[in-house]
């Protein structure tokens, strides 16, 4: 196996990991969204639930866009 081929294989693995992270973050964001909806409907739920869900979801979104940028840069570079 040539060094170039080996490098491409490694990059491919990294890219698959990045996409797996992205999908995981999206699923977590979906769960946070449903949790915030539950908190909105329940007057007894602490106010911090919705705010914490928002903060984590925002961090997840930033991570998704960062991973996508890394993904596309790595792919176009390889």
């Amino acid at each position: 196996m040539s060094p170039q081929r080996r490098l491409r294989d490694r990059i491919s693995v990294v890219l698959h990991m990045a996409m797996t992270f992205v999908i995981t973050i999206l699923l977590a964001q979906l769960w946070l969204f449903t949790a915030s909806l539950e908190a909105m409907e329940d007057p007894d739920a602490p106010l911090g639930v919705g705010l914490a869900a928002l903060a984590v979801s925002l961090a997840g979104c930033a991570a998704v866009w960062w991973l996508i940028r890394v993904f596309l840069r790595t792919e176009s570079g390889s």
Partner: protein
Amino acid sequence: MPLDHNERQSGRDGARWRQDFPIQSGEASYAARREFTKFLGLTSTAFVFGTLIAAGRSIWKRWAAASHAPRAVARVAEVDVGAYKLFRYPTDGDPCILLRLGPSAFAAFNQNCSHLACPVHFDTEAGHLLCPCHAGVFDASDGRPLAGPPRRGLDALRVDVRNGTIWVSDPGGAST
């Protein structure tokens, strides 16, 4: 460098079709992945906006509850033990029910079922609040769900009796 199929077909680089179809066959898979990842990113952004709206609405509801003034809904003598009275609070679009469970025991709830917002009614014999739409049953003393599809209790109101008058207010709001 050998010409690809498209270049052989056109015979020149500045062809009009190149402006209409700028993506070459070799770049197509990259462009497709770029579009797909953009879709994932926009989905993530949409989740953030959805969560933002839910959190904002949650804050707004609490602020609105705190700003509603208590209201006198009945005289104690108007409601017999085991009877109920319907009223609206805090706005005319919010139907509520006041229950007299004992000589000095009162409870008040928003009348909308927590399942699909059908109005609940008081079953005086069973001592429960019933939803006729999907057979939801709630405890009359605290509004917690006892049977049927509702998973969340009824929204309870704070009840105060002063000088023979029954006052209701939001539980999160300031009392007088």
